[in-house]
């Protein structure tokens, strides 16, 4: 079976000897056309992987910034069908940057997990992160996702004990998402030692690349995290650029996001990494 975009991207990052930047934006935030313009700018600005939020009325794992982004998108009429269309449009001009849809299970369940995976794969989606779908409940989505070649990304938290680790990472594909803090997105930031320890714990159980997210807000924090992680996820801080633009502060949303992502990318690329971190995943 040929490698998917996510595996190809991590293999390329390993060859370059650097960590990747994963950027989160919410689909349709603040509206469909601006959201599409933002998405189109991300690869050139330095995003290695794009996480695209599927707005949900009750995002219980998200902090204020991502909650507000989802509400803006929903108020502007965003739906699952429009989110998949957004990915399809993006793919008509961009074939290399992986897209991972991130969200909550209910909208996927209502769409129908099988039909959703078929449509998402056809649109050019490479992975799914469903925050409130732990491995114990994942089968109805994991089976059709695998059939369509979509990676169902598993999350590991600081609270995940070693004894539970195999349950979470066995059968995982794409990469492992390490939640760096006990908290919601975009709030506190973790101590660097704690992040390093969590990543090391995960690596004892899997050879998949490890992306670290939650609570990384600045290029400097991204740079520090990039020392230990295979990829660094930034979400709330990017979404706040949209929030500011909507409030009429600073540059237009797509410019603001692209500018900030470029700073984050520079931060990630400046990381002083011990070489080689580990054998390349490929």
């Amino acid at each position: 079976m040929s490698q998917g975009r996510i595996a190809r991207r991590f293999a390329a990052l390993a060859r370059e000897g650097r960590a990747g930047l994963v950027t989160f934006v919410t689909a349709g935030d603040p509206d469909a056309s601006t959201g599409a313009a933002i998405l189109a700018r991300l690869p050139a600005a330095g995003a290695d992987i794009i996480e695209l939020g599927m707005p949900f009325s009750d995002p219980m794992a998200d902090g204020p910034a991502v909650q507000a982004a989802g509400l803006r998108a929903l108020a502007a009429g965003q739906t699952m069908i429009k989110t998949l269309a957004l990915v399809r449009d993006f793919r008509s001009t961009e074939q290399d940057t992986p897209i991972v849809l991130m969200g909550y299970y209910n909208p996927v369940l209502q769409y129908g997990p099988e039909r959703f995976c078929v449509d998402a794969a056809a649109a050019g989606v490479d992975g799914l992160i469903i925050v409130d779908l732990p491995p114990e409940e994942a089968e109805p989505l994991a089976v059709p996702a695998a059939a369509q070649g979509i990676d169902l990304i598993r999350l590991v938290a600081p609270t995940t004990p070693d004894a539970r680790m195999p349950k979470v990472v066995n059968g995982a594909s794409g990469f492992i998402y390490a939640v760096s803090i006990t908290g919601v997105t975009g709030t506190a930031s973790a101590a660097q030692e704690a992040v390093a320890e969590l990543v090391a714990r995960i690596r004892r159980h899997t050879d998949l690349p490890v992306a670290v997210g939650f609570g990384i807000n600045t290029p400097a924090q991204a740079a520090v995290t990039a020392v230990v992680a295979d990829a660094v996820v930034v979400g709330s801080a990017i979404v706040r650029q949209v929030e500011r633009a909507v409030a009429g502060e600073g540059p237009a949303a797509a410019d603001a996001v692209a500018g900030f992502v470029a700073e984050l990318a520079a931060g990630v690329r400046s990381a002083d990494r011990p070489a080689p971190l580990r054998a390349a995943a490929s």
Partner: protein
Amino acid sequence: MTNVNTFRAGPDERGHFGPYGGRYVAETLMPLILEVEQAYNAAKADPAFRAEMDHYLAHYVGRPSPLYFAERLTDHLGGAKVYFKRDELNHTGAHKINNCLGQVMLARRMGKKRIIAETGAGQHGVATATIAALFGMSCSVYMGATDIERQKPNVFRMRLLGAEVVPVTSGAGTLKDAMNDALRAWVARVDDTFYCIGTVAGPHPYPAMVRDFQSVIGDEVRQQMQAAEGRLPDTLVACIGGGSNAMGLFYPFLDDPSVAMTAVEAAGHGIETGQHAASLTGGRLGVLHGNATYLLQDADGQIQEAHSISAGLDYPGIGPEHSWLHDMKRVTYVSATDAEALEAFQLCAKLEGILPALEPSHALAQVRKMAPGLPKDHLLVMNMCGRGDKDVFTVAGALGMDI
């Protein structure tokens, strides 16, 4: 021996009642939820835990609550013999405290120092703050900013009891948003915090645990009816938002085929208006707040706001065991509108000298519909799960009176 025909065996080891229930939470919470389950199983098997709970139920909560024959209402309706299970006479004025006592005792057993809870009308918040005060634990109650405005007396009560009331401004600022924020707060302080959920919903083991703590209601009815009439009741009626008082009354009788059960959802302005809180009648299977269950939602899976004159029924979901009992047809689910509940409220005040809460006023509205058509020896028990003092301003407003 395993009884394959039992309705009381659920949930399975993963917390499922048929296709409902389960544990749909972020990984950060998953280990905690598993820990709560382990601790609850250990507590359940510990006679000392049961004994201490019975002590507080008797001497602090005031149990058993009476089973009262509502003679004037019975005469007025001219059919079934109507009994009230008087859970509104509990300390803090509702059934909520049965569950709070159990959960806070469990939190203490787990070494937790801090209790968090969500509340809509404030009844569960007051009950949680009460037990937290009793055991000297700190307590934060998440309450929608909109609800804080509507329920000022309960907000003040919680503060008097030493609890912090945290205004929730996310979403629409109502009960479901309060539950979202309570879950967010739990994720942020996993080490010292216990989340005391107010109804038979949430991730496993909460639906089963809350049901177990509330089952004291049905267990007492079984004994009390035996003493009063020498047999089991024929029909049980309870209102249902999340469904904890109904589950508590019904559960001990689920395997008694002669006992019929009716649960009453809030139809708000009427199911056809879309302004209601009737998840079973007007919703469909979805996932929210850690469990799969019937939910009010749009075609795209976005959760909709519920509406009811009763803040305690104003929730877009329902406990997963109710969803299952609905599909199994073991319990009949009907609904009553705001207007029907208001009429029942006034009738009960005048005929029985009891101000029912607006929540059981929905159950009473159903009793008014069904009792006249039943024979005079038919024993009907309605759960009077809360008292109506908290609702006098709402009722006055609805009746166009200024107090």
